[in-house]
């Protein structure tokens, strides 16, 4: 834990990329491979399930610190992070140990999962006794499952590539699926990760996907991209980006977050594909017709632990295929986009199953005509268009070095809403009011009131957050726990991607991806938008078609 805590401190304590890289390389070179394996897992974004419920952790810490519960709560509110709060309230350690990260994970934290609360309590006390505050912070983070490090996966990849002396792309490939959590990181696995390139690279791949190629947001005029004929145009769907991998006679469905989601979509798990095929596409719910069902329906599938036959029949999933990365066990990613597309079309036609649909190409004579088609996006149940260079190879991550994908999204919906509740954020935003609830007007005359309809966290600069925070403190009406209700004085333009009727929400509607576009200082509270305006947006929204009764 000491080495890992040292690495964490070094990564945490500098904003300079080269110093972070140096710290990572230094760590990977010196630590034992079984520890390095776990470090890679966490640094690359692995999130183990919580080993001990937060309440149990918190109660044990309160007991061990001999602190009143209310004092703990006050402290937590100031810190904004459970692990950090616990680390700061515990008494000084009694001894010091130096046990490696792998032992911590496998022999110490692992056995706590699902164990008897008395056993957990005893072990926590014992382990806390031998850790400094920084190590305690990490220990609680590792137990709690919400561990994040201020380092990009790309940087981890670069550090590993440097010590392995192989290409970073190869490391990225080998790292695929590393964070899935179903495979325990091992010393052997780590040594394989940093081994020299081998002939068997492909065989070693198992069911792993390729690193996803990601699109850039198109900000300017698409006409600046040159001739339209150089671009392959498709709709941009709002589903789950996924790769369907067929190897060893088995299907693996991977989400872009590198989670294996095969079991959630039995219709795709059972799809027969030729051996050695990898299709990139979007998982969508498709109930018939020309447009996919709204994302809300897909959420119903994701949210369920068990999938009933009824649900599978009502909300069938498809893979909308838009790229082919592997065919007959051969990596196609270096082929130009249009060649991969031709192979994909042949494949989809050959498979001939309704669960595997091809993403249709959008054609137009001019950029202007294409722009007109894009205006129909909402009615088509899509978010805009994708523009893929016809000669683009399939790159790694959000890069442009071997070709470019652009996402050309439609503007979000926007309404002017009033801030009525606020709550402090966490981490960097601890003890600042950064989480807001927004409302719009409903009713007429004396009955006119503000109804909450959305929560939003992001979209303001630090300076704006401080101003809003100060106003919240000055205009507080009531406090309920951490939440403050405020006198309505501030109007914000709120953007969101979709809107659907929702009996679960007070306003009767729910919006998707709400975020703050800007503060409207110029607008009096009385002139903020109304619930009727919001409901009016339902007209043009595809969600209208699927209103729940």
């Amino acid at each position: 834990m000491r080495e890992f805590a040292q690495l964490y401190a070094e990564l945490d304590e500098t904003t300079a990329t080269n110093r972070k890289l140096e710290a990572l390389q230094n760590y990977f070179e010196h630590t034992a491979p079984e520890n390095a394996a776990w470090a890679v897992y966490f640094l690359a974004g692995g999130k183990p399930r919580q080993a001990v419920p937060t309440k149990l952790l918190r109660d044990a810490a309160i007991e061990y610190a001999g602190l009143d519960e209310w004092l703990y709560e006050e402290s937590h509110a100031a810190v904004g992070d459970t692990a950090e709060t616990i680390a700061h309230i515990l008494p000084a350690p009694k001894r010091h140990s130096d046990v490696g990260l792998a032992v911590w994970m496998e022999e110490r934290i692992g056995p706590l999962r699902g164990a008897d609360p008395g056993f957990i309590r005893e072990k926590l006390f014992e382990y806390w006794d031998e850790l400094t505050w920084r190590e305690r912070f990490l220990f609680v983070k590792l137990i709690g499952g919400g561990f994040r490090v201020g380092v990009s996966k790309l940087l981890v990849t670069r550090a590993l590539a440097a010590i392995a002396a192989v290409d970073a792309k190869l490391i990225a490939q080998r790292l695929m699926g590393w964070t899935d959590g179903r495979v325990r990181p091992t010393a052997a696995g780590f040594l394989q990760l940093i081994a020299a390139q081998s002939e068997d690279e492909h065989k070693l791949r198992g069911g792993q996907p390729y690193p996803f190629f990601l699109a850039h947001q198109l900000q300017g005029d698409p006409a600046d991209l040159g001739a339209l004929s150089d671009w392959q145009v498709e709709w941009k769907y709002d589903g789950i980006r996924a790769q369907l991998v067929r190897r060893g006679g088995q299907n693996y469905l991977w989400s872009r977050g590198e989670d294996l989601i095969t079991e959630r979509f039995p219709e795709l798990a059972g799809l027969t594909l030729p051996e050695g095929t990898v299709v990139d596409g979007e998982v969508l719910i498709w109930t018939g017709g020309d447009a996919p069902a709204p994302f809300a329906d897909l959420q119903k599938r994701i949210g369920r632990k068990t999938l009933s036959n009824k649900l599978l029949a009502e909300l069938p999933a498809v893979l909308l295929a838009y790229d082919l990365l592997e065919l007959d066990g051969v990596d196609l990613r270096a082929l130009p986009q249009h060649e991969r597309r031709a192979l994909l079309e042949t494949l989809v036609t050959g498979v001939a199953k309704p669960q595997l649909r091809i993403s249709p190409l959008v054609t137009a004579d001019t950029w202007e005509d294409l722009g007109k088609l894009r205006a129909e996006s909402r009615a088509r149940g899509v978010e805009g268009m994708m523009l893929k260079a016809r000669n683009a190879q399939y790159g790694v991550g959000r890069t442009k070095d071997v070709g470019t994908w652009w996402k050309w999204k439609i503007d979000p919906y926007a309404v002017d809403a009033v801030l009525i509740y606020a709550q402090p954020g966490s981490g960097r935003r601890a003890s600042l009011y950064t989480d807001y609830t927004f409302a719009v007007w409903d009713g007429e005359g004396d009955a006119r009131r503000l109804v909450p309809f959305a929560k939003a966290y992001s979209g303001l600069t630090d300076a704006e957050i401080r101003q809003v925070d100060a106003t919240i403190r000055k205009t507080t009406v009531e406090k309920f726990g951490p939440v403050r209700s405020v006198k309505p004085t501030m109007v914000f333009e709120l953007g969101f991607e979709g809107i659907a009727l929702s009996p679960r929400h007070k306003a009767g509607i729910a919006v998707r991806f709400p975020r703050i576009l800007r503060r409207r200082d110029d607008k009096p509270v009385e002139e903020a938008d109304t619930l009727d305006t919001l409901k009016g947006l339902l007209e043009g929204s595809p969600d209208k078609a699927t209103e729940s009764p």
Partner: protein
Amino acid sequence: MGDMVVVRKEGLYCVPGDFYIDPWRPVDRAVITHAHGDHARWGHRHYLASDASVNILKSRLGADINIDGLAYGERIVHNGVAISLHPAGHVLGSAQVRMEHEGEIWVASGDYKVEPDKTCAPFEAVRCHTFITESTFGLPIYRWDPQQEVFDDINRWWRRNADEGRTSVLYAYAFGKAQRVLSGLDTSIGPIVCHGAVEPLNRVYREGGVELPHTQLVSETGKDEMKRALVLAPPSAAGSTWTRRFGDYSDAFASGWMLLRGARRRRGVDRGFVLSDHADWPGLLGAIEATGAQQVVVTHGSIPVMVRWLCQIGLDAKAFDTEYGDEDDEATGSATPEEGEAKKEEAKDA
């Protein structure tokens, strides 16, 4: 009998003595606990402060202010109230005000720190019936490491930067914190360069008999020498053109708030050194207990927490709503360089 000290719109007011303690609006007679901006304001007709504070107050508020100095422990009687000043251990000249009237004793402590350091007289516990305390770090998460460990950390950071040819820029409030940091630096590592806002206060400290290592200005430092230097600058210098000229530098901030990662990340500095001139949670509780006071009045900081806790342990605790802490170095949790007192400290390096 009513309270000896009450809050008026001008500030804390000693009723029988007819004078104010650290008032925030202009008054006739003001007793000043220490020279930080939120406690020592301009415009009073008459000032009383510790001897060690007099020069600092004159340098901050003007040489022409009407001020009397009092040695620590020396007693004067004003309107029947015996007044004496006792070290608060916060910054040079900081004092607690002891007021005794008809056998009743109140102590107003201003800001205080209980761990002794080399730059000011150590905190002295004064027995009293009522103790007026700050609560800047009044939460159990705030527990300071011994300052030597913090100095060791700072020196380690400085040494590593110097070895790698990188300037170390350490932000610390110009009055108090900067000199305390200076007193703990290992001068064998490299030269110590002070921002133009820090150097005048170093002078005041030296004149007050506090030994500080040699310091110099940027203009007196060669380019190569700069690479091994530690630069002490006020927080307002963060991200300024003044700082950017150091090229590849590492920066850090010395403050009690740096205990929390969120606060450090908001600052956007590489390192946070947890060094405070205020008492931590055990320090506050220990200081309160040592006074033997049955009644405690809590001012600026974590007031509700402190009051609730003190009531729970059987003391008669309440709060005074003051205007302290708004401008003081550490008392603003906002921890942003563009706010507060820092602005006033901004000065160009000569």
